């Protein structure tokens, strides 16, 4: 039987007999008594349990990634290098991140601090922390109840991009942590990480009801909150075919298992509406673990990636041993948390087509809190306007408005063939109530959802007026900023 093997603070670890749904956090605290890592919520929303993992990014390059250890199941770090807050102090000397955070009084009660230290450690080794908003995007997965964040921002700004010659730099340079195939079992639970598509099909032939997992940012909550013990999980992490992020036929092929952090980096250059959505999609820790495929396959009505991709005309590409089939992404969602995936089939990638001449597109996300929150309403819009100023095509996709992410087809119809003017827009907006009958919950009332859905469309219209065609304004805000 295979063992769990990884490096913990540079020491090799081998374990057997532990449940494969043991979270890394519980392992650290209960099994190896590294209590620096704290549990604040066990759901990836507070960041107190943040540790850093040295692994491959979606392109195969070694990278230091901050993750919520409460959501990481032990088999997910197979072959990787895990670093906890205890690893920073070397030879009795505190790390520059620690000294800076303490000097700036970035800790008060100190309970969130180990997690903040680790998120800052990642920032310290990133090369792209060159703007204040990127620092906020880096740190928004770490809640602090004491400081009001000013000193944390200050400290993060001082250490970001320093890339000192510490043990992490050495490990980045000297080690090649590769995704490893794994077949692990303990008690009645099994965890498979097939190393090839053929191996995957074999597993699926034998276990057609297997559940897929990648980062576990959704699935692990069943373990931490409902104490579920899933009998069989299959990770798609060791299948490089599914990680791709590449231009294709004027558009883009987005692999289902690419980490969202990597997708965000790719989209920053290649596909700005996608980047706008990813800016507020979730915390750095979540984006370091969540994948496009995971977000789409949970088929949540409030999954944020679906509306923007639908609006861009994306197609889902499904694979099985039998081959490949494709469908418009909106057809992938067949009902509340139900997809078109058949038995033995996986979502391989999403193809985003080339955008037509005269296309204007963007994405919005509205939630109670801007950062690290679930949408009340999210939206992806694309209109194509011809040389005479007439709308030739409209794709308006919403999340949070129905049981699935869905297009506002009556509203779209009211736009097509009309001039792209405020009068047309207002006429179309009036049709939204026919497209959707949203629900009320703690994230927002039906009234709020309906009103915001309309206002986002208004905002989109005015944003297109105030910025050059066809691209929308540069910027990191997914919220409407028109004046």
């Amino acid at each position, binding site marked *: 039987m295979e063992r769990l093997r990884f490096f913990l603070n540079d020491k090799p670890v081998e374990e057997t007999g532990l449940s494969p749904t043991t979270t890394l956090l519980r392992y650290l605290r209960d099994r190896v008594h590294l*209590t*620096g890592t*704290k*549990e*604040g*919520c*066990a*759901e990836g929303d*507070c960041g107190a349990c943040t540790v850093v993992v040295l692994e491959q990014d979606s392109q195969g390059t070694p990278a230091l990634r901050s993750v919520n250890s409460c959501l990481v199941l032990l088999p997910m770090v197979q072959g990787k290098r895990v670093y906890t*807050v*205890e690893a*920073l*102090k070397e030879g009795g000397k505190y790390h520059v991140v*620690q*000294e800076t*955070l*303490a000097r700036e*009084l970035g*800790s*008060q*009660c*100190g*309970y*969130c*601090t*180990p997690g903040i*230290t680790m998120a800052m450690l990642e920032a310290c080794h990133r090369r792209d922390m060159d703007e204040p908003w990127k620092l*906020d995007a880096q740190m*928004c997965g770490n*809640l*602090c109840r*004491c*400081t*009001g*964040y000013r*000193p944390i921002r200050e400290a993060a700004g001082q250490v970001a991009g320093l890339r000192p010659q510490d043990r992490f730099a050495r490990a980045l340079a000297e080690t090649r942590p590769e995704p490893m195939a794994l077949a692990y079992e303990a008690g009645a639970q099994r965890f498979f990480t097939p190393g090839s598509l053929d191996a995957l099909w074999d597993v699926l032939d034998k276990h057609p009801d297997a559940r897929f997992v990648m980062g576990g940012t959704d699935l692990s909550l069943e373990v931490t*909150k409902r*104490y579920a013990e899933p009998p069989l999980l299959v990770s798609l992490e060791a299948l490089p075919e599914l990680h791709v992020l590449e231009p294709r036929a004027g558009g883009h092929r987005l692999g289902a298992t690419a980490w969202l952090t990597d997708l965000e980096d790719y989209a920053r250059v290649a596909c700005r509406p996608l980047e706008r959505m990813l800016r507020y999609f979730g915390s750095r820790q979540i984006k370091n673990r969540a994948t496009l495929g995971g977000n789409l396959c949970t088929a949540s009505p409030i999954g944020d990636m679906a509306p923007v991709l639908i609006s861009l005309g994306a197609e889902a590409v499904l694979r099985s041993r039998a081959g490949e089939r494709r469908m418009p992404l909106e057809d992938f969602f067949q009902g509340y948390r139900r997809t078109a995936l058949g038995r033995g089939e996986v979502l391989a990638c999403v193809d985003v087509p080339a955008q037509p001449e005269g296309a204007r597109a963007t994405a919005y996300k*509205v939630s*109670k*809190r*801007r*950062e*690290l929150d*679930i949408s*009340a309403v999210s939206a992806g819009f694309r209109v194509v306007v011809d040389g005479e100023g007439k709308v030739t095509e409209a794709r308006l996709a919403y999340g949070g408005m129905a049981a699935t992410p869905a297009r506002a087809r009556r509203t779209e119809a009211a736009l097509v063939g009309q001039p792209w003017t405020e009068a047309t827009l*207002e006429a179309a907006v009036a049709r939204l109530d026919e497209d959707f009958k949203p629900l009320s919950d*703690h994230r927002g*009332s039906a009234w*709020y959802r309906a009103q*915001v859905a309309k*206002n*986002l469309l*208004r905002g989109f219209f*005015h944003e297109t007026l105030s910025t050059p065609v066809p691209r929308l304004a540069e910027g990191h805000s997914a*919220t*409407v*900023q*028109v*004046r």
Partner: protein
Amino acid sequence: MSTLPFSPDAARGQQSEPTPTPLHAPAPHESGLKHTSGEALYVDDLPSPPGMLAGHLVTSPHAHARILRRDASRARALPGVHAVLFAEDIPGENQVGPVIHDEPLMAEDEVHFQGQTVAVVLAENAALARRAAALVEVEYESLPALLTLKAAVEAGAFLTTPHSIGRGEPDAALAAAPVRLSGECMTGAQDHFYLETQASLAVPGEDGAVHLWSSTQHPSEVQAIVAHVLGTGRHQVVVEVPRMGGGFGGKETQAAPFAALAALGARVTGRPVKVWLNRDQDMAFTGKRHPFWARYSAGLDPSGRLLALEVELFSDGGWSTDLSHAILDRALFHLDNAYFVPALRFTGRVARTNLPSNTAFRGFGGPQGMFVMEEVLNRAAELLGLDPAVVRERNYYGEAPHNLTHYGQAVEGNRLPRIHTELMASSNYARRRAEIEAFNASSRWTKRGIGFQPVKFGISFTTSFLNQAGALVVVYTDGSVQLNHGGTEMGQGLHTKMRAVCAHELGVPTERVRVMNTATDKVPNTSATAASSGSDLNGMAVKQACEVIRERLRPVAGRLLQLERGGELDSIAFAGGRVFLPARPERSVTFAEVVHAAYLAQVSLSATGYYRTPDISYDRVAGRGKPFHYYAFGAAVVEVEVSGLTGEHRVRRVDILHDVGTSLVPSIDRGQVEGAFIQGVGWLTCEEVLFDAKGRLVTHSPDTYKIPAVGDAPEDFRVALLERAPQDSSIHGSKAVGEPPFMLAIGAVTALRHAVAAFGPPRTPVDLASPATPEAILRAVEMARAAGASPNGPA
């Protein structure tokens, strides 16, 4: 940030060399490096004692129900389960109510909220205890429940009788006032969301004794309640607090039940027991900031000056009294905030609902009271077309007799006029307000607003006898020092300040002073670390203990320094780890040498210190007295930007000028000001506590309950401490800081109202609910738009 504040101690000193002292100088948090390295230990991090059991609570799934049957036989039969305990297994009294004894530790025949403890399971590990808890059978008969404050008020369900404080003839004054305003407003609950959830570890000892490690702001009360529940003397119970991962009031009374369950489990099983709540349990079982509902009538003159005010407050106490009395009292005390009202009547009453028992939270009713006054002034400004800052300035407490509060205490040393002038200038309020008006005129979908917020906050426990503290200072013969005091460290930097005071008094470097875990066997009979009083009370006690030791050391030092005249003894200085005559600093001995010599001379090297706040008293029945030792002051200018499309907002800039007297440690105080402000912004904007129709908490984790994240902090955050502002008769001229800046956040509401009003015609009345979530703001914007056809707005 301010430069180093003026130090009255330095001014008093005659020596030319500045005394090396940690007082009044910026310093890192005493545990800062330990926080960043994970070395700092919290209750759940302590090494598990051998044989430790996990305690898991079985709680009520009903908001109100009769218990018909309880059966734990299946749970007890599970291997590894050591005990399942019900109310009848309590050897002492089944009672943990801190003031009013209306709170059983475990329900007997009735449950009063979802999450009330019915039984506790003790098992080898947490997973097993959880499984066993699911096997405990409790049969209920559901009873009608009151699940909102208004429902409770309408049903006449109250925990207290009405309490009034008044002055003058408000009815007549209201009738005669040229401008009248009346209405109602509500403020919501707020979860403490300390990052460290409730945690207690109990280890049984000899003769029925128990040693507890508890994450509590009030170790002496935990000790008392545990002794009560176990039916033993308090001398058999030691409660120790390593540090807390945040408290904010949520661990003042509400750590005790969980500690008592751990202690009970330890007593019954003879094994160490840990009771630790996960986030969802913590949020569901424990109380929050009291929601308040206020009805008001105000009379003003056309210049916005208040002539009369009548306010009726109702708070939601939840199912038991807890500290609701005192919290309501403080709401009544602070309804006036900074303003003189000639004729008034403030009445308050605590309602009883079938929800978790609401409890202390930073500000302790003060924010809820002040919010009402600020709502009145905002509405007045909108009605009269005046700058809300001007309305506030016109109402400040002034010279006698306009300096008397409604409870008869004079507002002495009122620093608000000075703070107002300085902050208006440093924040460029007037220019920015004009710029905002211009921006709003040209911006259709986005509007900005600016708000000014002054705060006056009374410092002392309003239950006067609580204003006492103790310390125990122990000097070892190598000159190192252990400092024990009665306060607890929850992140606020109390230990940093106390260490600075101790090091200053003994003249040793701070590294030579170790602050010990707070423990009831070192400093007994303490008050909670609450009411912003930690530094004031414990600081004086620490100072006094150090003075006792220092005075004992003087004769010893005099001999070592070979002083001829006895009178010179009083001039001996203790500073920088050395002892010397300031007139002859070249001849000195080390502190360690003096201490060692004192030991050989059979001089005691440890001492207790004690302090009680002088000159405070309050007659609650008459509503008259001097409940506060002094007032703390501060003001904020807040600028926001609102999206009229989504109701989202951003805080663009915040300027704060706050009065902490002569700061003991300015860097710590700045952190308190900033943190309190953002916590206040959370209460007023994004934090929404919601229960469903059965009384179940919907927002029971950070997935659904949103405290501010890094991006919610102002883009531009300027905090200054008022300079040259020493406070009389307080520890080294300093003032309390924990709570007062929380209420500065009300300025964000004023700013939001300004922005919302800009979506409507001039003098648009704004109806903004609290918390001002994006939805609440968008509703207010839509109402403002509907109030008239804005020249810029959509049709």
